């Protein structure tokens, strides 16, 4: 069935998944314009988990677990297109490298991390060992780094590697519970996560390795994304998107859609691509 697609107005938006749809909330400065929140995409037969945004072609990418697949659609309006449809069991986290024009995802049943070109070609497994419940994945394109979480109840961890899977290292393994969400802020070079087990939001500078708590007592975070001074996360208990001022370390706003069901992945759809380039973009 043809889903209805509402083109997004210009500006920066939050995009998040609520089972059968991808919703957006426009941002004005750092404030959510809640009254203008609307579904971008209705996919009523699907359960959408992860969302990612390509700032170059203004496309949203998502993972779906009902008939496991990865698809994309233009946020300016257009038909959804399947990108990956075979050999997936439970695709969850998804990330776009807008410079290298590639797509990364985690599969929590196959327990691996894969990469492909944005059209689905040149698919390759880059990590297939020591993963139990891989979930969130994000890219840092200018530096060529990849970050992901594994909420393995026996040994949760946050890991990093280069974008080809080499130079893999564990960044965080102590005092973690269920690190469901992960985000990287290119301006501050901070990697932040939301943990549904410890109920904390924390950040680290991956190169320096220092660790700092942003907030504690959060309820049940699933997805998380950053934009400037704010971090936004989806919460399974509250069925809401919660805004946190990461410097003040406290909640500043929340958006609760009318429909009360679980919210999953969330991402920031930038009005323009963040500045920076890397080797792959040049060559």
């Amino acid at each position, binding site marked *: 069935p043809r889903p209805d697609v509402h083109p997004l107005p210009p500006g920066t938006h939050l995009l998040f998944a609520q089972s059968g749809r991808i919703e957006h909330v426009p941002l004005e400065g750092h404030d959510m314009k809640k009254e203008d929140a609307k579904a971008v995409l209705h996919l*009523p037969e699907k359960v959408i988990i992860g969302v990612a945004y390509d700032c170059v072609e203004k496309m949203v990418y998502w993972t779906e677990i009902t008939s496991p697949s990865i698809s994309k659609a233009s946020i300016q309006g257009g038909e959804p297109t399947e990108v990956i449809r075979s050999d997936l069991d439970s695709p969850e986290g998804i990330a776009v490298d807008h410079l290298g024009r590639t797509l990364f995802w985690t599969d929590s049943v196959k327990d691996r991390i894969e990469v492909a070109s944005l059209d689905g070609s040149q698919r390759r497994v880059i990590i297939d060992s020591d993963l139990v419940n891989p979930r969130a994945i994000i890219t840092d394109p200018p530096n060529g780094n990849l970050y992901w979480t594994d909420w393995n109840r026996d040994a949760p961890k946050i890991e990093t590697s280069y974008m080809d899977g080499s130079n893999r290292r564990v960044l965080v393994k102590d005092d973690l519970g269920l690190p469901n969400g992960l985000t990287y802020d290119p301006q501050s070079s901070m990697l932040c996560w939301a943990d549904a087990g410890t109920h904390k939001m924390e950040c680290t500078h991956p190169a320096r390795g220092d660790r700092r708590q942003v907030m504690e007592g959060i309820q049940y975070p699933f997805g998380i994304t950053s934009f400037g001074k704010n971090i936004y996360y989806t919460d399974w208990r509250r069925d809401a998107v919660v805004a946190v001022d990461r410097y003040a370390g406290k909640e500043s706003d929340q958006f609760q859609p009318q429909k009360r069901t679980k919210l999953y992945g969330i991402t920031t759809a930038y009005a323009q691509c963040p500045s920076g380039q890397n080797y792959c973009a040049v060559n």
Partner: protein
Amino acid sequence: NALIGTPGDCQPCPCPDRTSCSQIAETGQVVCTNCPAGRTGMRCQMCEDGYYGDPLGQSGAARPCARCDCNGNVDFNAVGICDHVTGRCLKCLGHTEGDQCQRCRRGFYGDALNQTAVQKCRACSCNPAGTSGHVNECHPQTGDCRCLGHVTGRDCSYCEVGFFNLQPGVGCERCKCNPIGSSS
């Protein structure tokens, strides 16, 4: 479309419990936008993640959406834990398997339904020297391995009374004690 000017311009949403809907301008298709709890789909005909059933009876008798029932052998932090129509569990943990994660996987034994056990399903781990079968083959509930002649113990690791010298692939030998000089 309220702008045509006929009595039938506005029609009730074809959604349960008088919930709202919207019409796609290009195709005229109607999509329910606020299905009742646990339900989703164009006409709220499907169950959401974590639920299963067939609320409109599209494949047989109607079954309301119920929470996935996996005998406590799934993790609530996981997504897609059961098939949204049949309820078949897709992410059984702790070495359990089955449509409701109701039994131990091959190579493991125990009671997958025991809600108090720390470890519901344990590995067979049959003693390779004493078993006539495979080290991963045991009774699914008791864990008894198939033992060689005169070998005993759950995992076939020692000799029966009156036997000694467990030899791999052979079993145990009868004790050759002189009945006159032995106390047992």
